[in-house]
């Protein structure tokens, strides 16, 4: 069920990218999809009633959540951050040149 909600979130982001006309809303769509994928990654690693994967001298290694995806998601969040910064930088420059955020008005390339 919760995996399904994750997919819904991803689809929502996709819808936002494909249907919205405002550049800022498109960027928000990209961010939403990114978060959906990251969330899915964390969910994959989760075990029911699992505990934090910390080694203690007397603790047994049962029912720990998977550590690796948590480390990977950190990387993926940083990549997402840099992509977002670049996109927003481009959006600012576009606003300087075109004085609009509407992509239907920013259409000089075609053919």
């Amino acid at each position: 069920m919760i995996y399904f909600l994750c997919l819904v979130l991803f689809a929502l982001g996709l819808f936002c990218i494909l249907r919205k006309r405002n550049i800022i809303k498109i960027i928000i769509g990209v961010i939403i999809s990114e978060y959906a994928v990251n969330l899915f990654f964390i969910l994959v690693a989760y075990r029911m009633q699992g505990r934090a994967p910390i080694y203690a001298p007397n603790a047994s290694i049962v029912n720990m959540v998977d550590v690796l995806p948590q480390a990977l998601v950190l990387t993926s969040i940083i990549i997402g951050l840099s992509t977002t910064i670049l996109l927003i930088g481009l959006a600012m420059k576009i606003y300087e040149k075109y004085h609009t955020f509407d992509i239907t008005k920013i259409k000089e390339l075609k053919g």
Partner: protein
Amino acid sequence: MILSTNLIPLFIIIPLACSFVIAIAGKRIKGFPEAMGVLATVCLLAISCISLKVVHVHQVLVYSVGAWKPPVGIALVMDGLTVFMLCTVNLIAFAISVYAIDYMRRYTAQWKFYTLFLLMLSGMNGVIVTGDIFNLYVFLEIASLASFALVAFGTERHELEAAFKYAVMSTLGSLFILFAIVLLYSFTSTLNMADIAAILVPKGKNNVILMVMVLFIMGFGLKAALVPFHAWLPDAHPSAPAPISAMLSGVLIKSLGIYALCRIFLNVIGFFPMVASIFMFLGALSMIVGVLLAIGQWDFKRLLAYHSISQIGYIVLGISLGTPLGILGGLFHLFNHSVFKSLLFLDSGAVDYATGTRDLQQMGGLAKKMPVTGATSFIASMSIAGIPPFNGFWSKFLIIFATVQSGHYGYAFLAVLASVLTLASFTKVMKYAFWGTLRDKWNGVKEVPILMKLPLILLASVCVIGGVLLIPVVRELFLNSAVRVLSEGSHYTATVMKAL
């Protein structure tokens, strides 16, 4: 053995380190960014040639990052295909870094250009050498991010629009790829590509793998600009500065798109007949649609960008046939296309540098004033159109021959048709731009400086003698080991595990 294994991380370290050094010191010291850029690419080209020899002796080399043995740690793998791609990428990068010295003088802040250029190069080399699927994603993003910034380098209206479109589409592609990697990880509990292949083989085909394959096709299809996913390419590639257009069209879409696609589908997941027929269809579609859209273009660089889509179609068609001959044709065409498409983009840059226009209708008779540019464009045009004895002929001939041999007559016909249309479209380019009468306003046009001429001549001579690579002795060294890696499929696991 230890010494040669240590060569592998250099492909990532050298460009990354040079890029940071340029970012720190390049602004203050004049000429430093150019010198470092050329030095780095020369070193990379030399190391690629050395590793060609090394791989011929050892077959497969594996480097464990931080001495953590795979499958726990990250592995960098160097086999025949890797070395083939490294040679292609670094050859083009060398030509471009020399060319950019003079070309980039019209822009401010050359140090930013070289920083981003080397960052992109390290991302591409990283994608090629890595043996870990999440690491592949990280390097993919490094290369993509640098390329977004480079497309927007001029910060004019068109460039920003194209860069934004490209950035959104490419990020979407990366998200699909990441999603597929997550699914694959949850299914196999490992990230090492050889290990994933070993676990997937006994499980066979099931719904998770189906979903993963669909996501990978969408993701890498977006990166490689196969036809339903191609919309960003004709905007992004022409908008970048000419050296970067050459880099993007010549090697970026191949190392990020085609190479990763081949590696994952042929070596890791396994090449199911259904997937092969999907790829063949997409390849043939790209081939025809790309060339049909290209014929009507009057913008020199935009025309070239559409031809990239078409030629990518040939490569995908050749490789997805799955026969050794088809793969040989596909890979050989990949190398040839890198060379002649980069050359054409550099030529368009040279014309732009001398005359300041990209519109074919404005040009005319430029071959009289710019003999080197004219001659190299002619060689590259004939090469892309598949006229013997240039290299494009041999690879197209191999692909068409392999298609007929495996009984796909329809696709073979389409390949021949696309080749004829390519010839028509490049005849148009030559006629309008370089032949015919010289217009009065171009009387003052001068040939480009020597440093821009040298890479043109280098790449043109590779085009002319490219057929030599098919001579058995040379082929054994360069192409055959790459073909063997792909045609052996999931045998990849065994060879990588053995090399540890």
